[in-house]
Structures are given as structure tokens and as C-alpha cells.
């Protein structure tokens, strides 16, 4: 049965909010920002098999901004890697679902992250290994814009280009916020002084300047995401690929959107109910739109 990506992504967002609310711990802003990207990858683009997570030919995925692990866990559960009930063990002593992805605990994770800036380098290693071993899999790495302040990102960028890694596809979750970041000028400031920034400017020029092939998309628009992912996969031109995805931190829940405080904060009862209402109404409005026939087909898994 083919499902709609927007529906899946909204269900994943509900799972994220639900888990963080129930456990009263974890991150929200970054996970909600990256949800559509994860949905596009796991439910459309990547060659993976939940029944055979160790399959050698599978595409590899690294969530370099590991603090968004909960988004990946909900995505994996929805995809059928493990039962959704396990989500409620998130962050508990002994859980496989550590706050930051841990491949030694959860075998369907291709790599462990949590200390920012390291995942893209691991992706370079996987892509080099694939070429050397004549394997056709692709390696996908999601990085944050705040994370891109780490010098190591740019060390990886350089090597990927040197070794012509056109089997390496990066996605930049460009949401304009990090954990704390910088204050903005008074003109830009809102009345309550809560506006802060992750000032990643000229991302496109930077990645191009380092010799990567770039794509620029709205990271919440599946048509754009899917077409960029497809070109990134099919352009066998020796260039590593970077999809610059403009996103909204906290996407889908109005009062979390673009608010740096929601980087990691647990919702109160009231906030939880409002968040779920908003997500449910996205589901409803999408269902009515669906009747008007504006759908995006998903490959059956």
C-alpha cells in the first residue's frame, strides 16, 4: 500500500513530540527540522530493508547532528525496524535508543554520533570503502548548520572532492538556529528578545567553492527534496553532492518554530496538547487535499 510522505512525516513528528513529552527529556527543534528529510530518505530514496538491516548492499545513513536521534528512531520504528513501543524506552538506562545514536546498541544504525562535526568524515570513509570494494551503495549524511562551524566538516569536504566521491550525498539542515548562537541587531530583534541566529551565510557558495555539486531546496517540500535526491544519485560526474535544505527549526508546531529555546525542552501538558492538535490538523487538512488529488507517490516497501 502506498502512503503519502506528508502523512508519514506528520506521524513521525507526532511520535517525536509524544516521546519527548512522555519522557520529559530530549531535543525537539532539531528533530522536527530534519523530519521531512528523514522521511524522504527512508520512505523513498534509500535502498534499505528493515527485515535485513545488516544487508551489505544497503545505502548507508549517518545522522551527524546526533542530538536529533529521536527523529531517526521514530522514522526507523515507522519503517518497521523495531516496534513502536520501544520508543518509550528512549533515554532510559539500558535502552537501545540512546539520546545520541549508538550503533553498538541499535544494529540498524550505520554509525554513532553525538559529538558534532564527525559524521561527514565517517561518510567519506564509507564512500571510499564502497568504491574500493566495488559496491554500488550510496552514503547519505545529514549535518546541521550550527554543526558546520566545526572545522572538521571542511576537512571532510576537501577529501571528498579529492577522491571524487560522487557516491556521497550530504544534506545540510539549514534552519538558521543552533543551541544558543548569536544575538541579532536591535532592528531584527523581536519584542521579547528571543531571536538568536546560527549565521550560516553563503552556504551554497561555500560548498560549490570546495568543488561539490550543490542543490538548493525547501527542506519541507517533498517534490523539491525528491528531485534533488534523484539528481544527486544519478549524476555520476565524480563530484560529491550537497543538498542545501532550507528548513524551519521546530517545524510543524507553531510555538516551537524558529524558537531557539525549543532546541531541547520538554513540553508541558498544555503545550503537548496544542502541539498534537496542530499536527493532527495537518493530517486532516492533508487528507482533504488528498481527495482533491495532489499526491506524491511513494514506492511501496
Amino acid at each position, binding site marked *: 500500500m502506498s502512503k503519502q510522505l506528508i502523512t508519514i512525516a506528520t506521524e513521525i513528528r507526532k511520535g517525536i513530540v509524544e516521546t519527548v513529552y512522555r519522557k520529559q*527529556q530530549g531535543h525537539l527543534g532539531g528533530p522536527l527540522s530534519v523530519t521531512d528529510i528523514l522521511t524522504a530518505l527512508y520512505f523513498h530514496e534509500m535502498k534499505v530493508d528493515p527485515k535485513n538491516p545488516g544487508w551489505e548492499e544497503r545505502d548507508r545513513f549517518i545522522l551527524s547532528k*546526533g542530538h536529533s536521534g529521536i527523529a531517526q528512531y521514530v522514522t526507523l520504528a515507522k519503517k518497521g525496524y523495531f516496534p513502536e513501543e520501544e520508543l518509550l524506552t528512549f*533515554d*532510559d*538506562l*539500558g*535502552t537501545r535508543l*540512546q*539520546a*545520541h545514536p*549508538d550503533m553498538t*546498541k541499535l544494529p540498524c544504525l550505520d554509525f*554513532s*554520533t*553525538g*559529538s*558534532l*562535526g564527525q559524521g561527514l568524515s565517517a561518510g567519506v570513509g564509507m564512500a571510499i570503502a564502497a568504491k574500493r570494494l566495488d559496491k554500488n551503495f550510496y552514503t547519505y549524511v545529514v549535518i546541521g548548520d*550550527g*554543526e558546520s*562551524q*566545526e*572545522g572538521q566538516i571542511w576537512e571532510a569536504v576537501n577529501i571528498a572532492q579529492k577522491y571524487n566521491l560522487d557516491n556521497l550525498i550530504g544534506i545540510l539542515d539549514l534552519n538558521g538556529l*543552533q*543551541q*544558543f*548562537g*548569536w*544575538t541579532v541587531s536591535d532592528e531584527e530583534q523581536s519584542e521579547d528578545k528571543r531571536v538568536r541566529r546560527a549565521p550560516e551565510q553563503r552556504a551554497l557558495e561555500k560548498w560549490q567553492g570546495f568543488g561539490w555539486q550543490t542543490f538548493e531546496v525547501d527542506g519541507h517540500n517533498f517534490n523539491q527534496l525528491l528531485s534533488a535526491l534523484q539528481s544527486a544519485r544519478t549524476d555520476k560526474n565524480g563530484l560529491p553532492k550537497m543538498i542545501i535544505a532550507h528548513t524551519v527549526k521546530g517545524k510543524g508546531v507553531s510555538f516551537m518554530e524558529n524558537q531557539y*529555546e525549543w532546541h531541547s525542552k520538554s513540553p508541558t501538558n498544555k503545550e503537548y496538547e496544542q502541539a498534537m492538535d496542530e499536527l493532527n490538523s495537518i493530517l486532516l487538512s492533508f487528507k482533504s487535499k488528498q481527495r482533491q488529488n495532489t499526491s506524491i507517490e511513494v514506492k511501496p516497501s
Partner: protein
Amino acid sequence: MTTTIGKVESMRSVFGKKLAEITQSDSMVVTLDGDLGNSTRLATIEKEVPEAFYQMGIAEQNMICVAAGMASVGLQPWVCSFATFLTKRTYDQLVVSIDQTMANVKLCGAYSGLLTSNTGKTHHSLDDIGLMTMLPNMTVIAPGDANETRAAMEAMYNYNGPVYIRLTRAEDIPNFTTDQSFTIGQGKVLEEGTDVAIITTGSMTYQVIKAVKILKNKGLSLYVLHLPTLKPIDSEAIIKAAKQTNYVFTVEEHYIRGGLGSIVAELLSEEYPTTVIRIGVQNEYSECGKNESLLDKHGLTPEKISGRIISKVYN
């Protein structure tokens, strides 16, 4: 002798307030943040003394060398991040640009040990005492409560040279020290009994104070030495503790290798050979969990600490 227990004060909020005071009164003091100011409370400086606050972003290695450059021109930078990223992520930069140049930089490792607000092993810092005491020019401080943090920060400000301060995120520690001043390198005897010496540092001293209550009820006479400075170490106080008692235990929120336990064992093996039993994290990686369950898992609750001591003494 019993320790007086005062009110509970958050170490990180005292850290932010004290550093805001220092930067307010001395414009040569500046602060550098690794995008964690709202967690570590370095944000207090951005709010109260904005001209003394530099946001360096998520780029710890760069931040360390920027601080070294500032110090070489006469500023006194205080650099703050989570202990694990501040030390491990930047170790070569720390060695070459800070320690080898004897830069007057104050390194503030927040969220040290296991208690990092449930973020797991990538965020735990269980080796920073080892890494930092290894450096020849480094001074290493791990205050036990908020009051001592305030006093230690004043001493750091007045000291010329690199200092690492190890801070805890735990917010349930009452003040058990009362001193207004802090002498770098000096230990504090909290109990002067004769059966068992317990040597502790940082966040674990309060757990030991609670363990002592349990142990006294079992009829043991305890000697408790709190070491808020790990380098230079108070050798005399350690030797005295060993001489006065029959057993020496160390307790730390750190690996038993390379930390307080190693320092004490190395010293005593040369100066006054004694069996030293090290209580701390064993040779394994930690994981997620609530504060209480993590301390329990690694044997660092008052119950587990006292249990370990009792089983050794009455074996």
C-alpha cells in the same frame, strides 16, 4: 567533628554570577562560549556584561587557540564548554597553545562526569582529570559545592597561568564548605576518625558525606579528606590520612584510571605504601540514564559507597 550542611545552591548559576562579577570589575577578563551558554550559564555574562562575551560557535579547537592568542596580548580569557568537548576535542590545541605557552587562560568544563542531563556517553566526561593533570603547567580544580566554586574562581582570577575547573551539572548539592577564600593546592579535612580514610573530590564529596552517616551507624570511625585541587596535589594531607587510618578509599565521578584514585595510589606507593581502593567508573563506557540510576549503576550513591567500604572492612 561533623560537617555543617547549608542551603542548596546551583553550581552552574553561581559560576555564571561570579564570572559576571569578575568581568564587570575587570575589563581584561573576557569569556568565550562554545554554543552552550544557556546550559553552562555563561549566558549570564552575555546578559549582564555583553561586551565581555564572545560566542565562538560550535568550534572548540578554534576557540582554545583564540583564547591563547588573547592571553598572549594580556587578556584573561575564560573559556567554557561541556567538559568532554573542552578537553578531548581540543587536546592538542590545549597542549600546544595553552599549556606549552603557559597561557593565562581559565578553562571551565561544565557538565563533567556522568550527570549531563541524560545525554549519554558522548557527553560524559570521565577522563578529564586524567587528561588535564597530565599537562605539566596545568592547575586542576574540582570544587565540591557552589560556595567553594565561588571561592575557587576568585583564586583562579588571581592566579597567573592555565587552570582547568571541573564543574558539575548536579543541582541538589547543599553547601558544606563555608570558607570564603580558596588556597590552590590545599585539601580540606572534613572528618578526623581513625578506621577508614575516604579521599574525595568534586561532586562526590557530598555523596561521601552522606555515606559517612551510614558508616558511622555501623560503628566505623571515618577520616574524610576533600581535595578540591587535583594539581598541584596536597601530598602531605594524603599521607597524613593514610598514616592515621587502616584503609584508604578514593571516590570520584571519573574513571578509576587516571583520576584521583590513580593520583593517590601513585603518591602513596612511593611515600607510604598503602592499599588504595578506588571507587569510580570502571573500564567501560557509560550510557543514558537519570542521575540517580547512573550513580547507582556505577557504584557512586551513598549506599553503594558505604556498602563497598563495609564489605572491605568487615569482609
